[in-house]
């Protein structure tokens, strides 16, 4: 039950027993979760991993087209948003990117006086300034550790000033110190969107499908999803990135909310169903041939396109499945004795559920995986996953670079698929490449979603096996930041403390 009377969502630790440290088999993780044995364990060695504000909330919110983001924080918290004028611009307008758009954000740029005397007047001023300068439809206020610790009354400001402001003010409680689990930031954001921005439906739009798109899904992924939904006579409502405020307002009018990442979307999906009766599903996401078909089937179920969808799926699978088969065959022949090609994926919970079946589809084996965090929301799905692809080792950590490097050396898979900003784990003798591209990438090469994405990504992964010079050279020629003993001992969880 989502309580929109509250100022924000509960943290993931509370609402879903979220943890960010676990080392073991996926089956054990499921069991521990079911038995209530999952508890937070503190690391004696920890690396910077992102907070609920700057695990990309900043760079997402800054791309909402007719909104202004206000960071109520010291100046450093908003620095990732310096990319705001360039992100999405490299995508040619010919690919459906609007010609004209502008993003704006302000920082209240705390100084020493502010932390002593408070900065609510400064926030009010910033809101007025945003309204006067840019005439936005929404003003989204992001909070910070500092605004939280000094006890800023954000709701007081909003209630005070909203009557004089045309834009809808949307305060998001993403104080970094609130939670260890970065996904709390998503929940806090969706809570604010549901509470302040989504409007009561004027009319139901039977052909509208809400799709919460991720930073790690590219423009080509949007185009592929748009193409597939188009074949069903449906339209995608992509939020939050690069969306207009109107797209948020009309979330309540959609026929269904469909996932690209189940745990990213979950809070929004549940909220839209609870408040406005918009149905949703959380699995699967449209990654790989099989799951893309399944994804389309589920959408068709909610939009009355059941007979049409089978025709679309048949035609698409007919076209793309043979290409996947060719890639699969090539992967099978990489190792001389017919052993499966092994990969280590660095994944979020969502990609754990979407990428793993895809690897399976390609005939790749995933003996071990790294997952950013884990919570109750995906227990059933992970259990199903284990049934489908077999058991595997799982390292739950949020960007812990030393543990990632250790895992890569210890298990020594044929291919390490790393997130951007993953430390030095890319330096190795064997294969390495990126797990995903990013939203500003408009190239077909980088597609991952849908049928074309399954084939493009498979080709990409094959391509990555053909030359190891970069990672080998960097391994040989640069110094590792960790002492040798770290790699000589077997325990990736060496610094994990006892259960608290």
């Amino acid at each position, binding site marked *: 039950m989502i309580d929109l009377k509250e100022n924000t969502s509960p943290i993931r630790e509370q609402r879903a027993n979220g943890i960010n440290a676990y080392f073991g088999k996926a089956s054990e993780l499921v069991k521990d979760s079911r038995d209530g044995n999952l508890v937070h364990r503190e690391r*004696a*060695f*920890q*690396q*910077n*991993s992102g*907070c609920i*504000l*700057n*695990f990309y909330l*900043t*760079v997402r919110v800054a791309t909402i087209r007719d909104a202004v983001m206000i960071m109520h*924080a*010291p*100046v*450093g*918290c908003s*620095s*990732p*948003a*310096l*990319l705001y*004028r*360039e992100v999405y611009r490299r995508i040619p307008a010919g690919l459906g990117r609007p010609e004209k758009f502008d993003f*704006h*954000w*302000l*920082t*209240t740029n*705390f*100084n*020493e006086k*502010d932390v002593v005397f408070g900065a609510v007047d*400064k926030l009010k*001023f*910033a809101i*007025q*300034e945003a309204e006067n*300068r840019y005439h936005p439809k929404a003003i989204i206020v992001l909070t*910070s550790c*500092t605004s939280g*610790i*000094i006890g800023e009354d954000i709701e007081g400001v909003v209630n005070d000033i909203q009557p004089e402001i045309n834009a809808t003010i949307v305060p998001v409680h993403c104080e*970094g*110190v609130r*939670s*260890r689990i970065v996904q709390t930031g998503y929940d806090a954001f969706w809570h604010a969107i549901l509470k302040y921005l989504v409007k009561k439906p004027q009319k139901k739009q039977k052909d509208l499908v809400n799709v919460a798109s991720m930073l790690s899904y590219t423009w080509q992924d949007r185009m592929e999803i748009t193409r597939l939904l188009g074949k069903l006579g449906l339209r995608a409502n992509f939020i939050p990135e690069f969306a207009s405020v109107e797209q948020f307002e009309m979330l309540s009018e959609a026929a269904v909310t469909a996932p690209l990442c189940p745990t990213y979307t979950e809070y929004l999906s549940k909220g839209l169903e609870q408040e406005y009766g918009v149905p949703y599903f959380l699995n699967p996401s449209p990654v790989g041939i099989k799951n893309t078909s399944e994804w389309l089937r589920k959408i068709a179920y909610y939009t009355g396109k059941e007979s049409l969808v089978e025709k679309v799926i048949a035609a698409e699978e007919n076209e793309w499945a043979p290409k996947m088969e060719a890639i699969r065959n090539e992967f099978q022949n990489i190792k001389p004795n017919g052993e499966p090609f092994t990969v280590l994926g660095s994944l979020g919970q969502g990609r754990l559920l979407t990428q793993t079946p895809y690897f399976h589809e390609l005939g790749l084996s995933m003996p071990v995986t790294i997952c950013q965090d884990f919570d109750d929301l995906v227990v059933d799905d992970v259990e199903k996953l284990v049934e489908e692809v077999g058991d595997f080792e799982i390292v739950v950590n*949020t960007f*812990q*670079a*030393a543990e990632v490097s250790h895992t890569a050396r210890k298990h020594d898979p044929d291919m390490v698929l790393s997130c951007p*900003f*993953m*430390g030095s784990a890319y330096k190795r003798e064997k294969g390495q490449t990126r797990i995903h591209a990013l939203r500003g990438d408009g190239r077909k090469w980088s597609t991952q979603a849908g049928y074309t994405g399954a084939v493009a990504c498979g080709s990409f992964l094959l391509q990555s096996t053909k030359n190891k010079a970069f990672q080998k050279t960097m391994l040989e020629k*640069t*110094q*590792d*930041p*960790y*002492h040798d003993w770290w790699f000589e001992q077997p325990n990736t969880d060496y610094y994990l403390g006892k259960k608290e």
Partner: protein
Amino acid sequence: MAENNKIELYPEVVEAPRFTCALGGAYASALATYGTVPILHSGAGCGMANAHGMTFASGLNTGGAQGTTSTPCSCLIEEHVIFGGEGKLRKLIKSTIELMKGDLFAVISGCVPSLIGDDVDSVIKEFSDQVPIIHINGAGFVGSSYHGYELFLEAVIDQLLTDLPKEKKLVNIFGIVPNQHVFWKGDLEVIKSLLESIGVQVNTIFTDFSGFAALKKIPAAELNLVFSSWVGIKSAQKLKERFNTPYEVISSVPFGPKETSNFLQLVAEKLKIPKRVISKVVEAEEKRAYRFAEYMSELFVVSVPHAFYAVVADSSTAISMIKYGTNELGWNPQVVILTDNPPEEYRAAIVKQLTENLESAYSPKVIFEIDSHRIRLILRENTFQVLLSSSLEKYIAGGELDAIHLGVSFPIYDRAILDRSYAGYRGGLAFIEDLTATYAGPM
């Protein structure tokens, strides 16, 4: 007018200022000191924010082997806000020393420990007999990344340095803030080799492979050079008081032959290097630089001759660009917008550097402005053919402003800057290569 009055009420409420926080500046400085392991005592997102908004924003760089997600961090949350973060920090320092290779460990405290009153210095004392370790109190609200750089130097001076005998003709380089000065790596290497060519030993600190040794050597210098009209002067003053080292403010990194020759002559004067040594170097280098400049003359005269130009940059980069563009390329400076928010007392000297001794009949308007939206409005009111700025103006330049654009100042998201430099005799040529790459084609 009403709006202007309001602005004065809270001048720091701005769109996209071109710097990050004090923690960011100290973090950048620690990462730039090769072999140093920064330890962030902060929320878990401070390092990530600065990875995206500082290192990656300065020519798409990572922070090196100890940067980005490799940086140890105490990742403070609510329970630490209530019970304190000292215990967590103690464990983190202990494990970091065990696990990570480093000559120096630099604990950088952010907003959270400052607000909750952690006694970080006491925690650090427990380790000071095991490894070299310093503490920088870099709460984000105490100032910008420029201030963070000075806090790092202050911590080094106070906690690390001891008296050393002076070494003849040894100089330290200050004022070039890693990442904020997007060409910091290349420029430091160029300055070093320029000075070495006239027999001066250079402690660049940041590009040196033994960063810790370079820091400790600071008191041995005969002279400190500050390549900024304001950043690093405080540190130089402190070093003068403590080690009796004189300092010289150079204002900016010398771009192109003329400024480079002026710079070498100035240093020679200070260090009493014979004129003939300098003349020999200057003559040979200038001959080469201008010979190669001849190869670009057709392209230059057809594409960007006597252009009106605008510069949006930190004051040091702006001075470099104004002197080179105006006094070598024959451009006409239209407007200079300074984005580094220099303290009031330094502003007159910066304006002077930007407006005096220029070859052009025009003297540029000089405006101090940190608000990216206001900067855009100012640019719209001016006419120019070349815009040298951050990449924030990349997509505005062509459409709104009808100008050729090259990114030369923070942030730079539109190209990788690894060891690029426009400093020194060859710098002008590199600049022309980069500028014309954005525009040139067959005639």
